[in-house]
């Protein structure tokens, strides 16, 4: 394996080499890093063969796009996931380019931001403690306690806390330039964490890596994907059966 690993996964050896650790002979400390439950198992919902979403002109690709249609609930860093990243990028990119070409002569004026978090606060501007919010999101999404042993009570508390953060950003967040990019990233992390939590609350069963200590058994009646969305109010609903069947 030593010679071939460098060939097929060139990113694996360098950190060890730079650290002076022999990957194949030495022992080194390891740590389990939480990726949450989202990787490869969720994302913007794709509605057509062009990777289009329910927002006109918005095409989803790679990790940002849902890929259940290609992989089911299987996650991972290679194989069909890599193929999906490449193909969805090409499909979405081509579709976006075609759309832009078609609209080329109809575009007038500057683009208008439709988002409001960090751009148009509902109330007075206050400084937002981004690091504290991101630390909360990280803890509630990735800590062992929250990701491995979910319960209705705990998820409810998480959602209440994240709702508070979302309101704080929406009511008081404002920034410009690269600071706005950072603030929008914090808002996106918070929104995504609320969607994950709401979906976990709605799934009253344990299935795959979603483990509810208060509902440890798999419920055959819950064998349908959940859709989630919303900003000021988060919603979830089962994916329509017809859509699920069409995908199979």
């Amino acid at each position, binding site marked *: *394996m030593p010679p071939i690993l460098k060939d097929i996964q060139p990113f694996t050896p*360098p950190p060890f080499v730079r650290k002076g650790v022999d990957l194949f002979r030495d022992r080194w400390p390891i740590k389990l890093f939480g990726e949450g439950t989202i990787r490869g198992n969720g994302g913007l919902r794709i509605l057509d063969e062009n990777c289009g979403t329910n927002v006109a002109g918005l095409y989803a690709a790679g990790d940002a796009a849902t890929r259940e249609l290609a992989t089911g609930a299987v996650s991972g860093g290679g194989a069909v996931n890599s193929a999906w990243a490449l193909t969805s990028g090409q499909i979405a990119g081509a579709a976006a380019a075609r759309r832009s070409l078609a609209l080329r002569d109809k575009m007038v004026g500057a683009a208008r931001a439709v988002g409001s978090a960090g751009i148009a606060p509902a109330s007075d501007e206050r400084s937002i403690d981004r690091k504290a919010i991101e630390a909360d999101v990280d803890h509630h999404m990735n800590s062992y306690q929250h990701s491995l042993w979910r319960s209705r009570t705990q998820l409810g508390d998480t959602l209440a806390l994240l709702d508070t953060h979302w309101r704080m950003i929406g009511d008081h967040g404002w920034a410009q330039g690269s600071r706005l990019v*950072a603030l929008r990233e914090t808002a996106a992390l918070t929104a995504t964490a609320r969607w994950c939590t709401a979906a976990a609350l709605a799934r009253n069963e344990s299935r795959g890596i979603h483990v509810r200590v208060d509902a440890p058994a798999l419920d055959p009646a819950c064998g349908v994907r959940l859709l989630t969305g919303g900003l000021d109010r988060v919603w979830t609903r089962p994916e329509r059966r017809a859509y699920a069947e069409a995908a199979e």
Partner: protein
Amino acid sequence: MIAHIFEDLCNGCHRCVAVCPTHVLDVGDGTPVIARLDQCQTCYMCELYCEADALYVGPDAHVAESVDPQAIRASGHLGRIRRDHGWDRPDEAGHLDRYRLLGPLLQEGGETAARRYRTLAAGGTDTAD
């Protein structure tokens, strides 16, 4: 975390500033500036895009590293990740096609681990074979 930018090697293209997903770098006077080191997540993206091989990222994602530039220069690490990926020269990266051998390799690793656990369970001594 990113540890050093070699000013004499840097060609000032500032591509690293643009590709960094966490905005660690700022455009500088000729050479980029490490402006927000605490945001570096050690993804090596800047190294991949640096055609001048002027960047070095330390392997620890949580601790800033002070390095000896001369030692890094002599180590051969500069640019290796970019070259091994054929990042800007895909025709030199035919070795990546051997990726399909990863499955059997992982299988082999699993079998090796299972053997070692059996040895340990039987009261034997663990050996890294």
